[in-house]
């Protein structure tokens, strides 16, 4: 892999931005000013230079944020700095939806047209933008602004949503809830307006008995002191008193299982990493919350970021990790901002660093931002992304506990899973397990959105039924419930007949559904459900990384079949087409290497089978 960087050069502004991410170049060989007397006799490189490959995404972010796209010169300069072949870096940059490799207007509105937002008028916004600016991607006024369609932005409780990005010397990304075409257009012409944080509806604010949401909305997310006033870092102190093995014992006794969707016993994972003979161990907090309809981790990170850091610190302490990464999806600018400030504050106060709060162990956290790739929520794809590669999943085994990030034993947990840990430590594992049911202990966060009176994030003890949860959210306003999408795009539809099912792992398994990431999207009888299903099919087709055939081809075939059915023009009979869908789905489930392909047919199959969609004439 010899390096040929070509002749393209970055603009001075791009160079400054990239140097901001990577530090200044040390020699002419790295793309700095050529000093023949020094550079002519020595160059550094090799392992040390290549080991900086993990800075590829941060550098690409810097270039994108400065110019609004990644120019050939910027890419070449990044490659020179990191000794990455340009073709390879191009492959990485083009993998992520938020990066553009062709010139693009600096002000961009990413308008969510996904499952929930399309219930709340996203298409009307898109239509208006098309009239005002032109088709998606077209450069608008004086080529300063443009708009793009986006998959779920994780603001479903405030739908419809948009993300406004302004590239330049002081780049700003801002989320916009309750978006209207006028607000989007105003933000594009005056990007300063997007900096104001959106007001998050907190339906349970102040409710007693909350665990994960106890501080949310009450604590100042930018103050370590305020976090401590609200009980912060008590759990860490207790954890150190228990010792690493004691912590793992409590977590095991709590019977906590992962909240990211796979429901793996957390204690077992921690134990495996703690005992892994290879070192160093790494901790990864998966905050790439991209499942359409999900926004729980976003609210935790935005409103209680120190809790995330304390939880990671306890996990690192227990499993022997001195370095943790938190990988936040690119569409969450506020969460990233709050976390980075929290990390800086924690470092300044010794809560992260060489000797955490004087407890005699080292732990630090590095924040990494995704760049628009659903697949990076898959843990091994996330590792590749952190390492500076395309976010393509790896084959398992080896499992992350054996060979994960940088090939080392890695503990990977999702945000919600981790923030359970301080409560387990403070109340002891068995006490934690007393809440909920035998198979599902503790509380669970549910992202309730769509056709309900009070959409928002709800924390309920395991065991509540779906009906009770919908009631908490005020029920379906002025209409009849038609269906609920549980678990997001990778989940499944349930019918009004099934809403008495308890929201537990075992309870949902009984009706052939799953909790997934805690998504509850309600649809009333006015909803365009076939359109929603087509959107889900398009989502998977777009987000498939393309690495393995069943998923790459299957997601396309699935979408095509649905469109034919929706048009009433099946290949052969409708029954044959349904059979084809079934078979394609089975192949994806059996033969895809990761969860994306394996779950891509689930919601669609449930829509066809349970809701009777696509059976001729639009439902």
């Amino acid at each position, binding site marked *: 892999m010899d390096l040929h960087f070509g002749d393209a050069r970055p603009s001075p502004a791009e160079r400054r931005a990239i140097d901001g991410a990577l530090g200044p170049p040390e020699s002419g060989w790295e793309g700095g000013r*050529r000093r*023949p007397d020094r*550079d*002519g006799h*020595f160059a550094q*490189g*090799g*392992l040390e230079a290549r080991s900086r490959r993990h800075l590829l995404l941060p550098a690409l972010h810097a270039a994108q944020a400065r110019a609004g796209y990644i120019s050939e010169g910027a890419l070449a300069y990044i490659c020179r700095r990191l000794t990455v072949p340009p073709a390879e870096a191009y492959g990485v940059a083009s993998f992520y939806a938020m990066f553009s490799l062709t010139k693009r207007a600096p002000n961009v509105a990413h308008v969510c047209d996904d499952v929930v937002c399309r219930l709340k008028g996203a298409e009307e916004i898109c239509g208006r933008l098309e009239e005002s600016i032109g088709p998606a991607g077209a450069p608008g006024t004086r080529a300063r602004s443009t708009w793009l369609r986006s998959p779920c932005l994780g603001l479903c409780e405030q739908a419809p949503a948009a993300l406004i990005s302004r590239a330049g010397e002081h780049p700003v990304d801002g989320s916009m809830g309750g978006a209207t075409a006028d607000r989007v257009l105003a933000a594009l012409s005056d990007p300063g307006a997007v900096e104001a944080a959106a007001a998050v509806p907190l339906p349970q604010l102040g409710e007693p008995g909350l665990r994960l949401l106890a501080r949310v909305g009450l604590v100042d997310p930018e103050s370590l002191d305020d976090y401590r006033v609200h009980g912060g870092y008590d759990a860490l102190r207790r954890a150190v008193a228990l010792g690493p093995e004691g912590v793992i014992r409590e977590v095991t006794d709590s019977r906590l299982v992962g909240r990211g969707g796979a429901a793996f016993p957390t204690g077992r994972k921690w134990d495996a990493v703690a005992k892994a003979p290879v070192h160093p161990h790494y901790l990864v907090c998966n905050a790439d919350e991209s499942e359409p309809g999900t926004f729980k981790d976003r609210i935790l990170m935005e409103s209680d970021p120190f809790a995330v850091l304390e939880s990671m610190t306890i996990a690192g302490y227990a499993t022997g990790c001195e370095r943790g990464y938190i990988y936040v999806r690119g569409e969450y600018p506020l969460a990233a901002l709050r976390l980075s400030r929290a990390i800086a504050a924690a470092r300044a106060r010794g809560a992260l660093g060489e000797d955490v709060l004087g407890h005699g162990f080292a732990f630090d956290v590095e924040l990494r931002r995704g760049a628009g790739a659903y697949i990076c929520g898959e843990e091994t794809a996330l590792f590749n992304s952190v390492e500076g590669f395309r976010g393509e999943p790896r084959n398992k085994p080896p499992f992350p506990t054996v060979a994960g990030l940088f090939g080392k034993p890695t503990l990977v947990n999702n945000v919600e899973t981790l923030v359970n840990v301080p409560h387990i430590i403070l109340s002891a594992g068995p006490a934690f397990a007393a809440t909920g049911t035998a198979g599902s202990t503790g509380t669970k966060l549910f992202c309730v959105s769509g056709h309900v009176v009070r959409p928002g994030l709800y924390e309920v003890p395991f065991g509540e039924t779906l009906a009770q949860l919908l009631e908490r959210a005020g029920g379906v306003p002025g209409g009849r419930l038609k269906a609920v999408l549980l678990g997001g795009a990778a989940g499944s539809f349930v019918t009004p007949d099934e809403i008495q099912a308890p929201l537990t792992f075992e309870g949902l398994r009984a009706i052939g559904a799953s909790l997934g990431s805690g998504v509850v999207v309600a649809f009333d009888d006015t909803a365009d459900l076939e359109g929603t299903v087509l959107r889900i099919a398009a989502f998977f087709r777009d987000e498939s990384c393309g690495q393995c055939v069943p998923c790459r081809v299957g997601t396309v075939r699935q979408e095509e079949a649905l469109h034919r059915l929706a048009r009433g023009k099946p290949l052969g009979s409708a029954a044959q087409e349904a059979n084809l869908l079934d078979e394609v789905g089975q192949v994806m489930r059996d033969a895809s290497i990761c969860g994306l392909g394996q779950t891509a047919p689930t919601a669609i199959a449930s829509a066809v089978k349970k809701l009777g969609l696509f059976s001729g004439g639009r439902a």
Partner: protein
Amino acid sequence: MFGAGGGTSSYQEMEETDLIVLWGSNARETHPIFFHHVLKGIRNGAKLFVVDPRRTVSAQWADSWMGLDVGSDIALANAVGREIIAAGLANRTFIERATAGFEAYRAKVETYTLEEGERLTGVPRARIRDLAHDYARADRAQICWTLGITEHHNAVDNVVALINLALLTGHVGRYGSGLNPLRGQNNVQGGGDMGAIPNKYPGFQDIEDEAARAKFERAWGVPLPPKHGWHLSQMFEAMDRGQLRAVYAIGENPCQSEADQHRAVRLMNGLDHLVVQDLFLTKTAQMADVVLPAAAAWCESEGTVTNSERRVQRVRRAIPPPGEAREDVAILCDLARVMGRDWGRPSAEDVWNELRSLSPMHAGMSYARLESNGGLQWPCYDESHPGEKFLHARLWEDPVQGPRAPFSAVDFEAPVDALDEQYPIRLTTGRRLDSYNTGVQTGGYSSPLRRGETLDLSPEDAKSHGLDEGERVRVTSRRGSIMAPVRLDATLRPGLAFMTLHFPDDVATNLLTIDATDPRSGTAEFKATAIRIDRIGELAAAPDSAAP
């Protein structure tokens, strides 16, 4: 080294060592197969140092590239050695048990401080220190070199300066540690092993050793010359003196591969008789009185080759040679018959078995064993011997078997062709990935990488001469003058220029080079020529390839 001319280590050891020094070698381009083993080593965590005036593609893989001034290798090696001693990192146990001459070496390198090293080589002192400390501290370490070391007027001194470093640290005779000259062709090693050198019989048995000579005289039934013969450069000197009147050149194109080409052609032209045996009608063959068309060794002949890790491998005939071309063995035997000696019509295996009977280090290598083992590494003394992965394990035996390995105290000497105001630029020569030496084997094939001969210059030199990419210039040394287009190459520093020898018909680079030759190795100083560059506009129109 220490009596046998071969690399001490196996390729596999490159993959399992901790540190590799490529010294005067651009193996990425010139030894691409070997470099794959280096790459595996790098992947396994080995550190790579590349010592080369140019920042070659090999150097781009390195943790540390040390861009020394052309010909200052001994100064660098001695400074590294001095630093190892001064820092207390020398392997005293190994030195005391297995080597000789350490005190003289220590005294010799004493003046080569890091500061002096920097002054003589241009490499920052901190980097020299890094190499010294990393090499000495490594558990396993390899030094590999190529023509950057040997194409100098003091080639042997260059080599022993590197060997000294291995003796100083004990990085020889152990698995993973060694000293390796990389061979430029699949069978350069084999050529020497088989006695195609002027001072040894097959298996590195010295011609001037009475017992060895008696053995070969007995086997061949003829008296043999009792003195070392001439190596190639000495042959040209003998031509000059009128002592050498006839040449039989087998697979060699000296008219274009020798330094100072004007002189080489003149001397070859003055021969009474020239016979050339080759695959192609080379420039040398075109001058010959008789041309004997030869079969291609790699596909039209039976036999063996020996690679840089001393592995003897079978070569099989895949297709018959075209036209009148014949295998070298058949041609030689017919010649012998015409000269009155009937050697019969031996097969390649017959010849090999005779070799095995005379060269103890090859004795155990039957064709059957070579076949079943996928080749064997010499020495291989009998048919139960598995061959040696690495050489000189004896240096670690207690007590050491055989003679001690000697340090050689050598001094830095600047290249013969000195820079001055008239010839201010240092031209060094080398190869590119897509071409081979004078192009005899590669010129017949096209390559997307090939761009023809150019004078590669640093952007700074091009600017100071007012030259643009592609502009043709006159390049003049003290011996000759040629025209070549300029190519800007940022891997060169000001004052350093680069050319290859690949296109002698278009650009006869060797008209420029100097035939200052190491008397012991017979290799000319291709690597260091002093040149001047003139814009053609500034010169009266002159015919190409004119003498200055």
